[in-house]
């Protein structure tokens, strides 16, 4: 007699766990199944080398929704966000750009490069905060289907249009541009300092296969300002104990609510009978029944591998087939014997406690992209580097440090050779690039872990190594994520739901998809005809 649950969640990452926690708090009997031996998915801390704890994949907490922190009381379950203060960009000529959370100081720093830009920076920050205010509510909303919006959907769309119409002309203009322009194109209108534009625009390309001059990369600039609106807590920062602690704290909240969590329990198949999901079969042969199955793994795995095209409409299969992953980034995690010494700002100091951005110029960023376009990793890649051990000593032995390097571009599809062959060459390229700015780096490396897009796919189950479970590009956002007509967290299979980063509002340690999905499952979230169907338990709204 197989076990029976109200809901099974596939994948124990931060989104899956969030969905589980919300469902359990609504009184459901929930089981979370995680393939790996640790929880967290890509929000995971692992002691790769004795004494050195890495946030192996994602490395900073970005936009974790405050309502989730409150609802699940994550602080009590061990979540502590430590400050990630500023961004330090070393330049080849020995100069640098160092922006911090102290607006005045940043203004003075920018003035060193351009007085005009320092003036513009105030106006820019203000404008971005206004924009963020406009966009923020969209993140917690279930996208309506524009081809058959239903009353609720029409109301939502009309509401958006109306809020847009009532923005001051200037903000409307900025909004329009932010949603459509390239990051550099947008910043060109405000600033003249190349290194400033390069560093700011970098956030626009993370997780996409686009360059900083490609339209559609501007809107991510907003994310960095949304934090300020969330107020209360720091939305950009380190999680004490690594990003795994985010997942751990959500897991703790889930367990407290009665969620059962199994690790090393890989799902082989989702059981579908007459178009309805009724449970899952594990790779060890066990099968478990449930009223609802919610998958936090990406659509390719969920539908092509676990569900099977034979159960799905042709159009949907086609859409999932062309849903774009093409991971473009890798990770290099280092164990250090001492701190890197940057020529542009020698010695230890607060500049090492924030992000260190290897983005000296817009052309540098573009050339890094050019390499990837033609199928090789960047000879001189863009990097976003953090040294969490400076802020959180618990992740490294005394006097030692961990350094996490996010590296782009590293295209999943290589023109020549395989990632297994190129892995170490990629690692060397990263070290050589860092050495151009911090020559002592080679002498202080104790251990080096190279994570390629292929590793992300094999070990962390991210198809084609895309860190966001699919590119965050305009044609894959909002009501188009992950497939047109299926942005409501529902799927063509009754009682099968999606709750991962491949759903609106997408990737990052936001946990918003997990929460929105839970609401949809409980019949409380959605708009539009499809979403108006209640969850299987016919709950009152």
């Amino acid at each position, binding site marked *: 007699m197989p076990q029976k649950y109200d809901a099974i969640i596939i994948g124990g990452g931060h989104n899956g766990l969030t969905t589980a926690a919300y469902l359990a708090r609504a009184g459901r009997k929930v089981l979370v199944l995680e393939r790996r031996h640790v929880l967290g998915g890509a929000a995971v801390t692992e002691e790769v080398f004795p004494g050195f704890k890495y946030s192996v994949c994602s490395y900073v907490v970005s936009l974790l929704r405050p309502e989730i922190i409150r609802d699940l009381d994550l602080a009590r379950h061990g979540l502590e966000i430590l400050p990630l203060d500023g961004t330090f960009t070393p330049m080849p000529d020995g100069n640098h750009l160092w922006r911090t959370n102290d607006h005045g100081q940043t203004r003075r720093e920018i003035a060193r490069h351009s007085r005009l830009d320092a003036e513009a920076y105030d106006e820019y920050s203000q404008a971005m905060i206004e924009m963020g205010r406009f966009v923020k509510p969209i993140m917690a909303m279930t996208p309506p289907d*524009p*081809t058959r919006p239903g009353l609720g959907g029409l109301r939502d769309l009309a509401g958006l249009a109306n809020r847009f*119409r009532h923005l001051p*002309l*200037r903000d*409307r*203009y900025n909004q*329009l*541009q932010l*949603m*459509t*322009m390239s990051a550099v*194109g947008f910043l*060109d*209108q405000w600033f003249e300092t190349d290194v400033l534009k390069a560093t700011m625009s970098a956030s626009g390309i993370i997780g996409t296969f*686009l*360059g900083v*001059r*490609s*339209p*559609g*990369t501007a809107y991510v600039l907003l994310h960095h300002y949304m934090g300020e609106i969330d107020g209360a807590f720091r939305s950009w920062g380190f999680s004490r104990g690594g990003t795994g602690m985010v997942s751990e704290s959500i897991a703790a909240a889930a367990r407290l609510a009665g969620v059962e969590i199994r690790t090393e329990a890989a799902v082989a198949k989702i059981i579908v009978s007459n178009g309805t999901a009724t449970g899952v079969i594990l790779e060890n042969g066990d099968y478990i029944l449930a009223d609802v199955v919610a998958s936090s793994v990406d659509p390719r795995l969920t539908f092509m591998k676990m569900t099977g095209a034979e159960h799905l409409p042709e*159009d949907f299969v086609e859409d999932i087939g*062309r849903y*774009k992953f093409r991971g473009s980034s890798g990770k290099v995690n280092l164990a250090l014997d001492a701190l890197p010494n940057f020529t542009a700002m020698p010695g230890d100091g607060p500049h090492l406690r924030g992000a260190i951005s290897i983005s000296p110029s817009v*052309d540098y960023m*573009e050339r890094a992209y*050019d390499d990837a*376009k*033609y199928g090789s990793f960047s000879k001189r890649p863009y990097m976003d580097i953090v040294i969490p051990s400076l802020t959180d000593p618990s992740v490294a032995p005394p006097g030692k440090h961990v350094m996490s390097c996010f590296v782009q571009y590293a295209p999943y599809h290589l023109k020549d050779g395989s990632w297994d062959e190129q892995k170490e060459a990629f690692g060397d390229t990263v070290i050589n690039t860092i050495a151009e700015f911090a020559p002592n780096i080679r002498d202080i490396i104790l251990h080096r872990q190279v994570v390629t897009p292929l590793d992300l796919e094999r070990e962390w189950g991210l198809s084609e190594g895309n860190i966001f479970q699919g590119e965050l*590009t*305009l*044609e894959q956002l909002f*009501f*188009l994520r992950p497939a*047109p*007509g299926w942005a409501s967290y529902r799927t063509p299979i009754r009682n099968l739901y999606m709750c991962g980063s491949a759903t609106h509002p997408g990737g990052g340690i936001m946990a918003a998809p997990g929460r929105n999905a839970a609401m949809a499952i409980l019949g409380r979230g959605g708009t539009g005809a499809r979403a108006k169907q209640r969850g299987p338990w016919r709950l009152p709204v």
Partner: protein
Amino acid sequence: MTAPVDVVVIGAGHNGLVAAEQLARGGLSTVVIERRPGIGGAASNGLAHTIPPVHPALARAMSLGGLEWMKPDIALTAVGADGKAIPFYNDHRKTIEALSGISARDAERYGTFVEQLTAAVRVVGAVLDRPAPDMDAPSFGDLLGLGGAARRFRALDRRTAYGLLRWGPMPIADFASEWFGDELLQAAIAARGLLGAMLGPRSAGSTLTYLHQLAFDPHPTGSGLTVAGGTIAFSAALATAATAAGATIRLSAGVRRIIVAGDAVTGVSLESGETIECRAVLSAAGPKQTLLDLVEPGVIPPDTVMRTRNIRAQGVTAKINLSLDALPVFPALSALPSALGGRIHVGPDVDYLERAFDAAKYGGSSPSPWLEIAVPSTHDGSRAPAGRHVMSIYAQYAPRALRGRTWTDERPVLLENVLRAAEAVAPGLRNIIVNAEVITPEDLELTYGMDGGHIHHGEHALDQMLVARPLLGMSGYGSPVRGLYLGSAGSHPGGGITGLPGLLAAQHVAAQLKKR
């Protein structure tokens, strides 16, 4: 002191001429002033080698008699490496047949492609042949128009509707590869999304420019229409219609200033020192040139000036005109005798186009440019003496703003690169060249008055279209100056030889002047 008129139209390009005809016919005394000695602007033989079909809205508004239209059997032939050629016929069945010899799958999908696209761009068209809606105070007409577009959208089958939503923001490279497998086929489709745009095939949004092109000519590669006598004959017909309606066209008359008293236009002063008083000025010159150069500084509010400066308009297209003393030979076309009736695409795959764009990103012209070649003299005897020929080449990328070089230095380099690329498909071309004219984006800006040398007077990007063309809050053809109106390709619905911006602007001006 010249006699006062109702409206001065700046520029005798297709938009200026269409506007003049409409205004004059409406009983307004209208004078068109053109800086160059000839009419046509971009719609002349030196520049455009094809014309989109006359838009129904224009056909309704004015008659364009006496034009002999020529529709080629093959609209465009894509020529790839090792003599491979893909003909795009105006009869889609023949294209499908030709494709079946290359890829059964692509041949099969081409039919669906044409079907879905034709349906989709009808929706796009519905918002392009009327003024962009006013977001703040939508008029009855706006709602009607939007209603129409919405109706057409709902009428689409869901696949196409979703497609339309997805396609716009996509890189044309992804769009093309979603549909087709053959690289040359992909490149030929992609290229049309890039014409005039500071975008590469992998730049997001390049599919939007493709859809914009299709809205005016739904053939996947453009149907390659021409008129006997060349594009200038089309402009001449517009000019004839305008004069017949009572408009005066004055050539070699450049504007120095648009005269503003208080907050309203009172006239224009010409470079000759002459002044023409008028109630309204309709400028078919680019919005940047009009607002930043032709109007006295200080008149336009600083915020508008700043936003106008920020209109992205960097030209990337160069034009090469060759006089030949023999018919050029394209070995790849030996089996396609009618191919020279249309155009030849040179750019074997998407990577080739992308690399061509890379050069422009760093402020240089493409070492291996993408070319679109036409040899009009093969089907229009009036274009060259017997036995001789003219070859017209669009070449991309040639960025207006070069880094560390001037266009004077770059001009011969550009020509050399273009000829090298052309000889790859037409060996021996150099030996038959009698004369070569190179028109750089700098020429397009300085001689033809196109903003930034951009053939559309500004990028066709999501943030520069519809309600945001030329500027958000200014899409209704008006400007901050009473009596000054903008009716160039820089206004809605944008570039391409359609005359629509001029038409819609003129209708607006006529309505405004009636009120006053």
